[in-house]
């Protein structure tokens, strides 16, 4: 459909307006990170000021940022890898060798995501304590793997389902065993989907706060715990909290920015032509 110039401008205005509205809290936080504490809480809010890096200096001085950063990388990366290793064969089996109960299993898996996490906090905490997993990276990797598995399996399942059945049947007639079908056809055909599933799992694990705060205290704390540590003890310091938050979400925003093409391609890729 052809749009007139007026319509184009209107669409652009609405689009930008909505985007700004949604991004506003983040933008405001980014601004606050470069203000002094008094500027940060000033009312009416200040938009123009001389930026300062003193908040970042203070944050770095008080906390060991690289420690948190490394934990986040290990926990998000490790749990994603593990979820893919478990999820790929699971989704393969469900997509190509379904039983009468496959659909039920899928729905049940997804339904576990509908329950508030806090509902199982006590049993999980107790189990983690008995298993010696409290405040360990492997404990968080384990937790995040479980947390992401339903979504990972669902996404992989839909990508596998999109592969036309005839292609695999043709391969069967050509003499490909299931393992060969998996490596030579399914993986290359669904690579964009698998990649975006992995990216999404990394992002979800990176941003997870509830379990990291409850199951880690010092050794295994990722960046979400790093932010939390700036919000509690000495009352609120908006500017420093903002600086800490910016440092925590910065890497994942950059990661998301760099991989956005891949993410969108994977999530919108339909029938394999």
């Amino acid at each position: 459909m052809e749009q007139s110039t007026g319509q184009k401008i209107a669409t652009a205005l609405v689009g930008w307006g909505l985007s700004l509205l949604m991004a506003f809290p983040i933008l405001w936080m980014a601004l606050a990170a470069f203000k002094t504490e008094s500027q940060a809480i000033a009312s009416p809010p200040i938009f123009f000021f001389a930026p300062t890096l003193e908040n970042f200096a203070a944050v770095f001085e008080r906390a060991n940022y690289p420690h948190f950063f490394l934990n986040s990388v290990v926990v998000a990366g490790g749990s994603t890898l593990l979820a893919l290793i478990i999820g790929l064969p699971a989704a393969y089996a469900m997509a190509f060798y379904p039983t009468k109960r496959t659909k039920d299993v899928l729905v049940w898996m997804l339904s576990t995501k509908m329950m508030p996490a806090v509902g199982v906090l006590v049993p999980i905490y107790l189990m983690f304590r008995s298993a010696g997993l409290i405040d360990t990276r492997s404990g968080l990797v384990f937790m995040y793997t479980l947390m992401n598995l339903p979504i990972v399996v669902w996404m992989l399942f839909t990508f596998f389902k999109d592969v036309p059945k005839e292609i695999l049947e043709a391969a069967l007639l050509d003499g490909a065993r299931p393992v060969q079908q998996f490596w030579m056809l399914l993986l290359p055909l669904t690579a964009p989907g698998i990649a975006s599933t992995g990216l999404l799992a990394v992002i979800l694990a990176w941003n997870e706060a509830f379990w990291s705060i409850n199951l880690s205290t010092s050794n295994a704390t990722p960046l979400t715990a790093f932010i939390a540590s700036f919000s509690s003890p000495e009352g609120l310091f908006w500017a420093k909290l903002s600086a800490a938050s910016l440092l925590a979400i910065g890497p994942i925003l950059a990661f998301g920015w760099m991989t956005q093409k891949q993410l969108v391609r994977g999530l919108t890729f339909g029938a394999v032509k």
Partner: protein
Amino acid sequence: MSSVTLNQIGKSYGALEVVSGINLEIADKEFVVLVGPSGCGKTTLLRMIAGLETITVGDLLIDGERVNRVRPDERGLAMVFQSYALYPHMTVADNMSFALRLAGVDKSERDRKVNEAAKILQLDHLLQRRPAQLSGGQRQRVAIGRAIVRDPKVFLFDEPLSNLDAALRIQMRIELARLHKQLSATMIYVTHDQVEAMTMADRIVVVNKGGIEQVGTPMEIYQNPDTVFVAGFIGSPKMNLFEATATTVDGRTFAHLNSGQKISVPMQLKPGTQITLGVRPEALTADSSGPLAGEITVIEHLGGETLTYVDIGNGKLATIKSGEASLGQVGDTIRVSFAADRLHVFGPDGRAIRIQPRH
């Protein structure tokens, strides 16, 4: 030698029986076309032969050996799918050599076979392309090439031309017939298009509701349909079929058409028998002393031939196929006749009652 034998083959999904009692002998180098309406079980039958679907009952023999439980790739068959089913991430050459690669054939031999097949199918210049960069007809040829490269005992085709436009379909039809001669291979071809069946088959197998209606050469089936179904399905335009009741006057049998008119029938029938009369459109001629009369309602000029639709009562239309000249004008009433030996009579069970053997 590559013959295929189906013995009392049947397929059920749970309690639902979709194919039953199939008996068929397919000889070496034969081109057999399975034809039938949508949902009659053609694909299911082909997939059972290929090994993609388990056989519920009966025996499938290839070269005399029972292969019900043999893996698809070990049956020595190649299948061309309606959707082509090419591997989208591989080049044309890799698509065609995939089976050989899996079988451990070395590179130079693979290349030789791929090039050979590519030459037959005129794909030489496309070998390095991906399927997405090909036209429908080219994809179809790659799918056939993938089958040829494997040197199969039997080729299976499932409606391979149905995604192509009319002109390309005719061209590929000719190419497939040529290929059949060139490779002198056994081919089993599924289609719902009776023109494809008539033009390509050595023998046609008409399938209906999961069973075989009739097996024969195209001309046998065209000239002597065993059932009303086959009579109506094979041939274009369709055979004229008139439902009627048998009556006897002075010892002669007449068919009292449901649409009102009466025709004499050259055979003895019990009065009151429900029958169906069939006459091919080209067997009907305008004839002022003919037994049927009706008003011309539509005339279609197809260039070399003309189709005239005549209302023979109660809105029942008879189709007449004639040459270039019109038989009259819309609104005219004409009389129609046909040679007695061009009349088909089917009994209440839908089976043909032979007047006399026709050859």
